[in-house]
């Protein structure tokens, strides 16, 4: 009996860790590909509404984001409590939209500029007035492809 156990103990060598870096690198590449760097701090609270008829936005580089919502608690002293527009990392007005769009446009190759989509991330409790102003500004700037960002509805 003792002979047996002794033999077994001896027979198990250290596991080779040589393939460990490969596995880790694989994971690393996965996360590198799916990572979206959070480019700007959110200054407004946004909880987007739910919907069922969703389209996925494919190319991140062709999307610019417009946030609309009430300013976060810590910014209420500066920006007030009524819903505001956030472009990049600043609270803005709809007058700033054309410049914002133009700044995004110059980063996109010319042949893909017609595919630029504006993603409107609007809080569900916001009234349509400010959304309408943004839509009008987008239409005037000839940015007609928009996407109302929504969460998938749980059935």
């Amino acid at each position, binding site marked *: 009996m003792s002979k047996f156990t002794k033999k077994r103990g001896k027979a198990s060598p250290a596991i080779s860790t040589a393939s460990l*870096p490969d596995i880790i690198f694989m994971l690393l590449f996965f996360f590198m590909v*799916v990572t979206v760097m*959070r480019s700007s701090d959110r200054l407004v609270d946004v909880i987007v509404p739910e919907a*069922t008829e*969703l389209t996925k*936005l494919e190319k991140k580089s062709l999307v610019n984001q417009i946030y609309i919502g009430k300013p976060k608690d810590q910014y209420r002293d500066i920006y007030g409590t009524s819903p505001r527009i956030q472009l990049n990392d600043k609270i803005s007005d709809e007058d700033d939209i054309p410049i914002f769009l133009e700044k995004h446009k110059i980063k996109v190759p010319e042949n893909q500029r017609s595919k630029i989509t504006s993603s409107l991330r*609007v809080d569900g409790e916001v*009234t*349509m007035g400010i959304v309408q102003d943004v839509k009008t500004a987008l239409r005037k700037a000839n940015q007609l492809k928009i996407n109302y960002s*929504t969460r998938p509805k749980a059935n």
Partner: protein
Amino acid sequence: MLKRKKNNRVSNEVNAGSMADIAFLLLIFFLVTTTIDIDKGITVKLPPWSNEEVDPTKLNKRNVFSVLVNADDQLLVRGELAEVEQLRERTKEFIANPEKREDLAEKPTKAIISLKNDRGTSYETYIQVYNELKAAYNELWTEKLNTMPGYSDAIFNNELPLEIRRQVRAEIPFVLSEAEPTNFGEE
């Protein structure tokens, strides 16, 4: 010559043990910064800006499906109060008009959905209404698609060939006109 070879062999093996540590470090960095939120939503094509207002009176009344949402988030569909839950079925019936009723659209290509809201309408309600209208079209497109050879169980989505999608959408075009909102109930 022989001696040299031996020397080389000694320095050949690089210790790869720390490779895992480096990779781990990077991995943890990307794990922390990752936000896997695929941007999803309802895609809309806005009409180009023009100062001319479209005159809705020119249209035949039976072809227009008017949806009004007021500042209290109530729905008025073709002049009568309605619930969001009924909207999808009513829209489908209006566009397809299976019983060839006099007061519904002549044919799907002539149907126009007219959506109007107040400035005080909540965004959530607006999205719900828009979602229902879009869902009605998606269901009709799927039904249409199923009548085509080779697509009897297919669901209409963006993965279908563009040619097929165009064909289906030519039969039932998505026409949704949004009027300028009225100034009621803004905060």
